[in-house]
Each structure stands twice: as C-alpha cells, then as structure tokens.
C-alpha cells in the first residue's frame, strides 16, 4: 500500500511532470489564464493520461513485446493517445460545450502533450507493472492538474498586477513557473522511512 502511495506522491510532487520534468509546457502556458479553464484542462488531461498510460502498457505487453515490434512503440502509442484524445474531445463537446469552446485548439493538442507520451514511455522504461503504470499515470495527471490550477490562480492574480509591459503575459508566466519549480524543489528526496 505504502509503495503505491509513494508512487502517486512521487510522481505528483517530487517528480512533477511540469515543474521537474518540464513536460507538457504547452497547455501549461496556453490554458492557464483562468482557473476554471485550468481545472477543465486538468481533468481532460487526467482522463487522457490515465487511460493512455494503461492502454499503452497493455499495448506494449500484449502487442509489441510478443511480436517483437518494439521499434513501433512511439508510433503505436501516439495512435492510441490520438484515439483517446479524439474520444475525450467528443465527450467534452457533448458534456460541456462551454469548456469545449474554451479549451479550443488545446484539446486536440493533448495528443501532442509530451506529458502524455512521456509518461507512457517512462512506464515502459521503468518496467512498471500494470497497476504501477496506472498509478504512475494518475500521479502524473494529479501533479499536472495541481500545478495547472495553482499556476492559473497565480496568473489570474497577476492579470491585475502592474507587471512592466516588457514582462507582461508569457514572460512573467515563465518567471512564475520557474519560481514555482524552485518551490517544488523542496520536495526533492521525499521518502518515508
């Protein structure tokens, strides 16, 4: 039990996909202007990440390995991710048209969200079991969502600040992301003895 908790905590905080691995920066910078949008994006990504982490593991285990076609790994993973994203897009459009409109281009772009492919590949690299892969996906997604929401909160606040013109917008966003990353360094070495 404890090791599962550690996987989630580890991937969410210590090795946060965004702030430590610097994956998934595109939606992180792109859809973090409003907290509500960030929550939506976080949830959509959580869904895709978890599903793709699981299905890529299955794919690796039951298709790529048995047939010895690991060289097709990235290709097949992208295929699966793309399908999951397509599905998510349809679902979001149906369930929440507003969110669909707000997420706009970033929804299909989850496909190329490096965090999603990254987590799928890392799972294989670290030789995780199915449950571990799933938790790895969930943890990463939680970390991603958490950071997205925090970052959106900060940016909402900054939108009312007198940021110098030359730093307004994306530049100050990157500065804040850097400082946030600095703060997350505090979790490094987190381990329960």
């Amino acid at each position, binding site marked *: 039990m404890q090791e599962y908790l550690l996987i989630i905590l580890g991937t969410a905080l210590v090795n946060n996909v965004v702030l430590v691995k610097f994956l998934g920066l595109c939606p992180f910078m792109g859809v973090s202007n409003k907290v509500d949008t960030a929550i939506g994006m976080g949830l959509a990504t959580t869904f895709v990440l978890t599903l793709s982490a699981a299905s890529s593991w299955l794919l690796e285990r039951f298709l790529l390995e048995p047939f010895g076609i690991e060289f*097709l790994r990235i290709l097949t993973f992208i295929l699966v991710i793309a399908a999951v994203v397509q599905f998510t897009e349809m679902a979001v459009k149906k369930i929440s048209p507003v969110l669909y409109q707000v997420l706009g281009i970033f929804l299909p772009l989850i496909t190329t969200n490096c965090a999603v492919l990254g987590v799928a590949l890392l799972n294989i690299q670290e030789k995780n079991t199915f449950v571990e892969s799933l938790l790895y996906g969930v943890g990463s997604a939680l970390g991603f969502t958490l950071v997205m929401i925090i970052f959106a909160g900060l940016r909402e606040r900054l939108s009312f600040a007198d940021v110098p013109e030359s730093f307004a917008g994306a530049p100050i966003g990157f500065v804040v992301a850097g400082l946030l990353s600095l703060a997350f360094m505090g979790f490094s070495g987190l381990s329960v003895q």
Partner: protein
Amino acid sequence: MLTAIGSLTLLGLVLGGLLGIASKYLKVEGNPLVIEVEEMLPGSQCGQCGFPGCGPAAEALADGKADVTLCPPGGRALAADLAKKLSVEVDLTSMEEKEPAVAFVNEDLCIGCTRCFAQCPTDAFIGAPKQIHTVIGEICTSCEKCIDICPTECITMQPLEATVQTWHWPKPKERRLAA
C-alpha cells in the same frame, strides 16, 4: 514485417471503429455562435465597424477575423461581453470610449432636403421636405451617417452634457502618472 503491418492495421481499424461508434453517440449540432453574437450587437446597422452591417460583423467576430473592440456604439461593455463570449483576452483600458453625443441640426443652415432622413438608421430626424429638421436626442445613436450626406454641412455631433442625475464619480486617476 508482416506482423508489424498487420498489427498496426488492426489497431487502426479497431480504434477507428470505436471512434466511429463514439461519434455517433456523442454527436453535437453545429455552432450557433454567429447568431448569438449578432444578437449581442446593437443592430442599428450603422456600419461604424467597417462591416456593412451587424450581421457581417458578427460573422467576422465569430471567425475571429474582427476585434471585439470593433463596435463604437456598444462601447467597452459590449467589448467585454464579446470577449467573454468568444473567450478572448482584451485590454479594455486601452479602448477609447466614445463620448456620448447626439446629432444637432443647425437650423440656420438646414434647407429641408430630407436626405438625412434616408440615412438615419433609427429615424431620429423629424420634419418634412422643405422644413427645418430636428433630432430626437433619445434615439440618436451618434453614428454620424447623416453628417456627410448633408449638402449644407449643417449637422454636427454635440456631446451630451452630464446632469446632476446622470453624473457619476470619475474613475480615480492612475497612480503611475503621479511620478
């Protein structure tokens, strides 16, 4: 080689099939954005935005080809609403708010040609041919269409003066100017 091709094809087929089914169940009707946007616009067809009317302006807005600040009669309030609707960022402080004004007919110059009647989108002019015209202030949108058409250049825009009833506190001065 064959397995690779085979497995990929199979994968593609399976996923494609699943998505096909999903698209059937999760179908959504087309985007009614243009109509919604058009309803938000003033609808006086004044053409100050550069588009021939509110309808084309709405289309351009929905396509993202026009700025949400395009409509002077709508002012900042409309720009803010449009920005919300279209979820785009807009800096409203930089948008010039047009002073409220009404058309005013200089009665010494008016020859009663009624050409302004034909131009006015809200029928704010009253009078008759060969008579002096006047403007109903409450319905004039200050679209300025009448100014150019007048052969004697007798129409001008006059700012609406504030009264005790309409006056409100001005926005506090920006502190950064106090350097």
